[in-house]
């Protein structure tokens, strides 16, 4: 399983969305790494990618709203990190729209998304949880 309990931030909405996101990225990796011929997997890879792309936007926007609500001091910086990642995912989506879906490019992208998500959730997002605990309240 890709999701680990220590990735929890301590806000239910965010933790549930993170778990869903990890599940989606995990399905994406599975679709990318399965041994079946590439042509047979293309449609599934594309569908998982599209869903993930939409889900990332919903989740980022909910997480940013939570940060505002609790007065998280590094909210602007965190939003910028989200914007950069959205731009990167958007650029990849444009690329496959123009050039088609190539297996190697998708494998590289899946590795990038996996490592980004883990580093972000286990690193940057934990600071939100830490701030909430320091404020002594729950959401």
């Amino acid at each position: 399983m890709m999701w680990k309990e220590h990735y929890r931030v301590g806000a239910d909405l965010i933790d549930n969305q993170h778990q869903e996101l990890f599940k989606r990225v995990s399905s994406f990796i599975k679709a990318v790494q399965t041994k079946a011929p590439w042509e047979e997997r293309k449609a599934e890879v594309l569908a998982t990618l599209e869903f993930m792309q939409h889900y990332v936007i919903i989740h980022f926007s909910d997480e940013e709203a939570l940060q505002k609500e609790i007065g998280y001091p590094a909210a602007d910086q965190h939003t910028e990190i989200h914007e950069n990642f959205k731009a990167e995912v958007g650029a990849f989506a444009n690329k496959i729209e123009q050039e088609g879906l190539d297996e190697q490019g998708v494998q590289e992208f899946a590795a990038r998304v996996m490592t980004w998500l883990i580093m972000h959730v286990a690193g940057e997002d934990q600071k939100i949880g830490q701030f909430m605990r320091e404020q002594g309240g729950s959401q």
Partner: protein
Amino acid sequence: MKVEYINPFFLATVDVFKTMLSLEPRRGNLRAVEELVPVSEANVVIGVTGALRGSLLYSFPKDMALEMVYIMAGMRMNELDVFVSSALGEVANIISGNALTYLSQNDLLCDIAPPQLIIGTNGSLSMSTEKAVVLPLHTDIGTLEISISLRATSNS
């Protein structure tokens, strides 16, 4: 090469391995080598420019590389394919970026180039003309070796 260039890479690897892999690397003995040579199967080379110029070589044993990907993805992979080597490239990239942040605290401002992936242990890397220091980092799943070849540029 100055030893003060080495510690940031140790600190950055500890940060990144703890966060991403729940592993705490232990520092092995440093050794000097004449050139950058891949010691293990999965290798990532990253160029450095700015106040310091040179190359970094991250060398992961195959079993360690596959175990790292298992910890991250929760899925077993059996070969050093594009997905696995790209994931290693990303991890090496994150470590290097964090190490540069430590270096910048000593007023050494540097940039890194995108990671180059090399599978296999054949030969040395011709881009290296300088001696390197090898930093072994022992973990419960194997030993990563980072070869660091950096020198100060004249205007720094």
